[in-house]
């Protein structure tokens, strides 16, 4: 096996790996991503201050952070009730930032749910604020994380419907209905979607 020498250097004071300056940024996107991942992991490892990262268990995550996320989520939902969606989206954004700021060596299974809840909130806030492109991005992630939750497909379907992707919206609603065939909102929206498709085809 031929070994390839990567154009990287290690700085022992900042304890970070970095890409050599001679390398053009455009040709090393993947490498850049991997380097930043290594740096994050290593920084977390130093912070852990032990020879091995703590073994993952259900309890071994920072509870304080969870409290903060929860509080932020609550205040964001309060804003949602006051129909200040753009502000709510910002709050959800902060909550998400907190949730993803955990040490990378912590088990993510127990904290995954709070991430999903925050993401759902942000997606809904964006949708209500008519920021459908941002909402669609969140909905895509939600569909990947919880593909069996009909509401996630509903979220993506609404975004696609509003972005003019009627065929995708239709299949989103249908996919949601596959997990709960009696979901009233999904049924209603599918009907609307079919009507719009017909209208777009000049069929009605």
């Amino acid at each position, binding site marked *: 096996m031929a070994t390839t020498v990567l154009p990287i250097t290690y700085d022992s004071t900042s304890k970070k790996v970095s890409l050599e300056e001679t390398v053009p940024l455009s040709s090393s996107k993947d490498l850049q991503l991997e380097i930043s991942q290594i740096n994050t992991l290593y920084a977390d490892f130093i912070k852990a201050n032990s020879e091995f990262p703590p073994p993952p268990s259900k309890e071994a995550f920072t509870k304080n952070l969870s409290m903060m996320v929860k509080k932020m989520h609550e205040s964001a939902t309060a804003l949602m009730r006051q129909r200040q969606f753009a502000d709510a989206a910002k709050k959800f954004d902060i909550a998400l930032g907190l949730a993803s700021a955990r040490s990378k060596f912590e088990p993510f299974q127990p904290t995954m749910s709070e991430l999903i809840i925050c993401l759902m909130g942000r997606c809904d806030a964006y949708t209500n604020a008519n920021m459908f492109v941002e909402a669609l991005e969140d909905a*895509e992630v939600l569909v990947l994380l919880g*593909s*069996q939750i009909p509401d996630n497909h509903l979220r993506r379907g609404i975004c696609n419907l509003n972005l003019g992707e009627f065929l995708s919206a239709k299949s989103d609603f249908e*996919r949601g209905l596959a*997990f709960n065939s009696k979901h009233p909102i999904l049924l209603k929206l599918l009907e609307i979607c079919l009507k719009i498709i017909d209208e777009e085809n*000049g*069929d009605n």
Partner: protein
Amino acid sequence: MSQSRYEYDENSETWPYFLLTTVLVPLVPATLSKLYGFVSEATDKDSSSSFRSIKKWFKPYNDKEIEKFKASRGRSRLFNKSNCLVALGWLLTAILFLKISSITLTVSETNFDPWKILEISDSATEKVIKTAYRKLSLKFHPDKVDTSSMSQKEIDAVDAAYVLINKAYKALTDETVRENFLKYGNPDGPNEIKHGIALPKFLIDGPTSPFLVLIYVLLIAVILPLVVSSWWNGVKSKTKQNIHVNTADHFMKVMINANPSKMILIDDILEYVSHAAEYVEIDSTLSSKKVHSLLLSYINREPTKDESLRLNVVSITPRLLSAFIEIAAAFKNTDYCIKLVDAHRSIIQALNIDKDAKTHKFQQILQLPGTDISKIDTTQNILTLGKLLKKPTIEPSKFLGVDEATVKNIQDYAKSIPLIESYECSFKVPGEDFVPPNSSSHINLKFITKSPLHKSRPELKDLAKNVIESQFKEEESLENLKDPLKVVEEQKDIVIDNLPPFFPDEDYIKQNCGWVAFLVAQRDNKIVEIPKMIKKADLSNLKLTQEQYIKSECQISTFKIQLQSPTPSAVGEYQFRLIIRNLLYFGSDIDIPLVMKVEDKPMDVQKDVYGIEDPDEDSIAGAMAQLRGEPVKKIAFENEYESSGDEDSDEEEELWTDIDTDTEVEEDAVDEK
């Protein structure tokens, strides 16, 4: 005759036959297959008015180059290597025939023909034989021939001729010699088996023999291994989808590194495909960057300096994309597959749908020849072919920004784009009306094709009776049950009316102008089955008027996918989605949600089919049936005990009294005591 053990072809009698056979064995099948190809191509062309060029009213900006490309394709098809070889082969055959017809067989031991030797017909009488013999023996008798001026060789020849004449005469008159001749073909009786070489002697024994040896050595030690190895390399370097292994390897790497959170664009796909080894085969100086820029400029419809190279690059790209689709499907990646199909039709239509939001929005309109994003009134909400043809919000000419005649042409082109509408789509297990667990099933899709001009779809009940009987419901014959896909194969090939004007390779379009179907699990949005092309369908619906379309003249087509894996073993409902995408046109796609309902119905015990009653409870058959849990005929116990129980015991007593008298006596005695 000769000193060596073999006979040589001194008189050039055998080798032409030998060579003729060697030439004809590969030549005849090759010619037949060529002829078959030409004939079927010719009938294809005759039978339909389809695959018309629209060059009469629309010429793409690079029309000249495209025509040049097509012409060179056509020429190379007629004068390619294999055709030349076949022609050469027939030329050689003709020469050999000439040669063979000019060969006069000289008589020798091996082909003894007494009639020929005596120069008489084989029906000659004894008298004629005798006179002929006398005449010839006088002529060739060693004493009569003047040998003084002859060489030794000539003298020998005369001697041999005389001996032959004698032999021939004897063969026809003498009984034993005649028998020998009839039995062994030789008047001397059986002679030893001889092996011959279909080469003249001078080639082997003469001074040329080292050359012959050299030729043999070359043939066996050099040429044969070379041919085999080059053939094997050819086989090895191509995958099953007929792409280069390195290309397949690259596609595989792309799929392994696929990032699910990254949205891919047409541009990304073109970048991936530009690394294919096939492009280097076109021009060894082509770098992947250059290929990428060529492809990108092509779908952006920008003129380039090196148009013929670009067309060469473009013409093989869809084939690579098709292979890429198969690889992406093997990785179960739905998003990539769908984007690859998009890239495929972007190449065919030379339209970059991801160029900007407007192009993306109006992709269905912009694929029509003669349209231009700069001329289109983008404030109008006419996004689909259907809307343009049926219910345009403004005059089409105003919307498209072209004159009336062109609008008419564009509309005609749009009308001929086939759309697909599903009637019924379900999982079927041959011979069952439900889906049992662990069974081999297929997807059965009944659909109609329609023009974008047609409104809605005809009700099932409005369709013609024979259509419903034969096309919608399939006949449950043994053959259909055995091979459910036969119905699909028996349909007509898909043919489209108009060729997309930008793509240079017509043959590719003719073979791929259908849809591709992906089966996706709703649970995780992953492809669960190898994608399959819809290549056969009845497109006659496209020619119908709206009246005819809605009232019963529609034809139904069938498409089936045989599932590779058996149905799940657990009973329940499984959710799928059938994604159908057109490989050429935008806006001819459908998604069909599908439920596989796996049921485990117990086998119906067919009680009354043969009129067989349940077995009696006390019979062996009854006992077996009870073990199996099947019903049995109850027997009225009490009655039997009451009526016949006593009789039985009486009989028993009688039997016992005969045999065991002693014990009874003893018992009696005991009792008495």
